[in-house]
């Protein structure tokens, strides 16, 4: 089980340590720091040292390093670390003898009361009956539940056949899902992810955006880049928050481009060209073009950048999933219900 936990900031200093069993010297983190020095952020999550296993995750420049002495399922630790909340006292309630005790943030809030002012605010909000649901399409349904009492909710879909592979929040009753394809649950308060799912491969999901790209090499050291983004089958909705990330090969020195929409910048160190377009205007397709200078003597045949595309479409679920109805049992009042569909690009990569 988890023996100790060290939290290391981006400078490589241990700023927090916690021991559940015997005290382990923080010098054990050196193995981790060494790996970090050698590979940057590309670190194997499990590092074996002579006496310990270091299992680590990195979030926002901060590294969480758990030290284990014996064989343990690594995902057990990793999954736990992801749920670690940043207060030190919480950790104490969360782990007992290295074994996770309570990780549901809502329960933890019960155990450790938030500061007074916040508490009163929380109480007033909880007192209102309100339910807002956001659906993060292609991946999951996130709920934001603010209901009093012990409501028993049932969520049904118009086309549940679409689901191929699902994973649930523990509150969902699996048996009813199996039998009736209904999500029946008593929700915890606050925000949580109710279900994540995968759409079966039979139902083709049309990608609502296209990127036309062209990179032509004129002379040995100059090339022309031309990118156009356009919407495709968006059912009249606007595509928003469009961002392109072009990963250029090492030999590209600089890019001098003009964009008819949005802003671009090229980072010569990481060789990433960011192009923040924003909303796609139907009348004038966003386009960026210009010249790219290539380091002399490099092999031009090997220039093949890849493009990561980010976008969101609100009020549309590309997967075609639709919520039929949401019913509440067990409480007398009438809740406010709402569904918000949103499509977000996951990891959408185009190879040039």
């Amino acid at each position: 089980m988890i023996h100790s936990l060290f939290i290391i900031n981006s400078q490589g200093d241990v700023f927090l340590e916690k021991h559940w069993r015997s005290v382990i010297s923080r010098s054990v983190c050196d193995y981790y720091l060494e790996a970090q020095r050698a590979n940057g952020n590309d670190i194997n999550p499990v590092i074996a040292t002579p006496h310990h296993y270091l299992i680590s995750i990195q979030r926002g420049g901060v590294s969480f390093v758990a030290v284990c002495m014996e064989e343990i399922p690594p995902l057990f630790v990793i999954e736990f670390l992801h749920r670690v909340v940043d207060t030190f006292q919480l950790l104490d309630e969360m782990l007992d003898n290295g074994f996770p005790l309570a990780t549901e943030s809502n329960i933890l809030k019960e155990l450790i009361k938030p500061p007074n002012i916040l508490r009163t605010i929380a109480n007033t909000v909880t007192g209102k009956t309100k339910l807002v649901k956001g659906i993060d399409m292609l991946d999951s349904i996130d709920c934001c539940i603010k209901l009093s009492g012990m409501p028993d909710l049932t969520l049904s879909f118009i086309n549940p056949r679409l689901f191929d592979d699902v994973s649930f929040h523990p509150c969902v009753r699996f048996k009813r899902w199996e039998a009736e394809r209904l999500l029946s649950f008593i929700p915890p308060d606050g925000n949580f992810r109710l279900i994540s799912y995968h759409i079966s491969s039979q139902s083709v999901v049309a990608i609502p955006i296209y990127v036309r790209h062209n990179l032509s090499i004129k002379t040995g050291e100059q090339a022309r880049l031309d990118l156009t983004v356009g919407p495709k089958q968006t059912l009249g909705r606007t595509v928003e928050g469009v961002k392109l990330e072009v990963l250029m090969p090492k030999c590209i020195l600089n890019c001098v481009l003009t964009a008819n929409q949005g802003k671009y910048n090229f980072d010569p160190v990481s060789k990433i060209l960011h192009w923040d377009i924003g909303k796609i205007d139907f009348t004038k397709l966003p386009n960026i073009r210009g010249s790219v200078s290539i380091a002399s003597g490099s092999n031009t045949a090997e220039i093949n950048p890849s493009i990561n595309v980010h976008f969101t479409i609100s009020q549309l679920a590309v997967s075609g999933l639709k919520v039929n109805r949401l019913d509440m049992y067990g409480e007398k009042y009438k809740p406010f219900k709402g569904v918000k569909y949103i499509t977000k690009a996951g990891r959408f990569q185009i190879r040039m």
Partner: protein
Amino acid sequence: MLSSSSHNMSNNSSYSNDRGSSFEAEYAVDPASGGFFHTDFKKHDDLKEMLDSNKDSLKLEAMKRIIGMVAKGRDASILFPAVVKNVVSKNIEVKKLVYVYLERYAEEQQDLALLSISTFQRALKEPNQLIRAGALRVLSSVRVKMISPIVMLAIKDASSDMSPYVRKTAAHAIPKLYSLDPELKYELITIIQKLLADKTVLVIGSAVMAFTEVCPERVDLIHQVYRKLCALLVDVDEWGQVTIVNMLTRYARSQFVNPNLHEDDSDREFYDSNSDTSEKPAASLDPDHRLLLRSTRPLLQSRNAAVVMAVAQLYHHASPKSENPLAAKALVRLLRSHIEVQSVVLNAIASISAKNKGMFEPYLKSFFVRTSDPTNIKLLKLEILTNLTTDSNVSVILRELQTYISNSDKYFVAATIQAIGRCACSISEVTDSCLNGLVSLLSNRDEAVVAESVIVIKRLLQTQAADPKEIITHMARLLDSITVAQARAAILWLLGEHSQKVILYCIAPDILRKMAKTFSEEDKKGKDVFLWESEASSAADSSSSGSSSSESTSEASSGSEEESSEEESSEEEECEKKDYSSCEDSESSFDESSSEDNNTPVKKINSSQQDKTKVEKVSNNINSNVDNKKSNLDLLLDLCDINNEAPVMTPSLGGFFTPSTPIETPLTMQIVQSTFINTKSVELINRINGKGLSATYRFTRSPHLYSPSMTNNLAIGMSIHDFACISKLPPNCSLPATLGIDFNDTTQPANFEIVSSLGNFNVCIKPKVGELLRPVKMPTSLFIESSLDFVE
């Protein structure tokens, strides 16, 4: 003053635990950096004051600061007496922080810690379940062996507490107490048994955790609760699910019949006409086994990656093969999670896919590499892709691999090339196209790509029967441009290995010469291979073609007319043919034939002497590293110039001069034992062809008793000395026997018959060129001397 200095000491001791490098950093960051120790001491003083005050708010503030220090890894043990007093505080917040402090320092200050025990005992009787549980948790975390009877008692009471939360804490306390005092094991097991029987989902996860930590061998405890565990599993908290599923996996593996047993025996069933074909492996599953699989299936839908992985493990180890795809789907879903999760899951998939290809084949596309993946994930994905290669998808995979080659991550590109090599090995249809593809990579601009391709091609040629001539020639040309040591070694190895193939005659010695010049700059690996190769190729030259090739090259390089060299080589080709046919006794007959051919009067002794020097140098290189650089150059000079000195060079190598040969010059050369003897045996007769008799052979690399020229090494001109008849060979026994064969300097196979009561078997032993050599040793002075001669 005194106390201050002692405090300094304690501070120092805490820092001695720190990393040396953070030393300065820590000082610099600390706001009290100037008079660090001094102010720190003062701070402690006011902390003490605050703790002693009557106000809870002050105490709380002090405790917060102390806990902050503990969290930063600074030593706060000096405050122990002041803190421990506050354990009786009525304020729950203060109390909690004192608990946290006690957990950390009780071990170091055992005597003082004992003062707080009575408070815990009182807290264990509190009506509030959270306080009871908290007290038990801290009490069991205080690692003081003296209190183990008290903890034992507390656990016993708590295990029958009304509140499931307290019982859960009791279950957690069990492994803590066990690690403190292993002698209490039996008492603890009875409590574990009680907790395992608990019907609340909150408790059983922790009870199973205690079980796995304290007494995983007591399977009998699980028998009684097995069905209950399966039934409740879905409702247990995630972390408990992981522990329970892992424990049940072990249980299933040890208690149930392997459901895949039938599949392994499917061949037998096919032949067995009586076998009941209607009996499916699934039908034969024990109902309890089925129950386990049924009750864990919903957990594959868990949001917790660890739970999914635990269930996938269970399915991998204990479910019929037909049900594995369920787990595969869930594992692939985890790939969309955090990077760390991806890495662990990919590791698991890589090892599963090596055994069970079909399981992940439908998800092939999920393992395609993205440019944004970190290197370790890229490598794992590559491994999985190659594991999944089948006849049907190989083209898709190869096309994908092709696009990876132009990636900017060199490490990844190297791994991709290796992956192509693996595909080529596993799917024979694509071997040729892969090989062609790899050869085309040889003209890539990136040196790392070329080097890696060379290595992979070498490996492919090693295992494939493809005709490597052109490829090798192509690669030999690359030798000048490649600087990666391993790749150079690979090229040299190939040249050495294939040097007996006709076409390579002309290039191998040239390469050898080139390499010798740069020998000193070579890497260790390159050196080793080069030495080995020079041995092999010179042996190949001399053994198969007599002195012809080395002589002709040497002629050319020493400035003779081209015609003459050509003439000579043609002459020598004749001579070589003669060699093959007429040699009875290698030494004398060859000397005769060659001296006849060249019409040069030569003393027999002279020639054999030359021969010796040469042999010696080659082997000297192998045996000692003293004069590596020189010796190799000399070896070549030797090859070049030998004919100026003595126009006739005997091709014979390895044991064709006996120590009794009269030596005129005061050379002292001794035949030495070979430093490396290959102990790997090669199969001569296999058990099926030999009707039950099998034979293997190896070269002993030592002269045979019968004649020293027989280094246990028969075409024409070969002689053989057979071993004494083995009168009886009991079943399942093997007996060693030594066979002497004089291969007469050729790599021609020796064909002979092994006669036994089971029948006669024709066998054939083909020596590798290296086996035809004999190592000798000579003094450096002599070596230098003779090499100087050659230079002139």
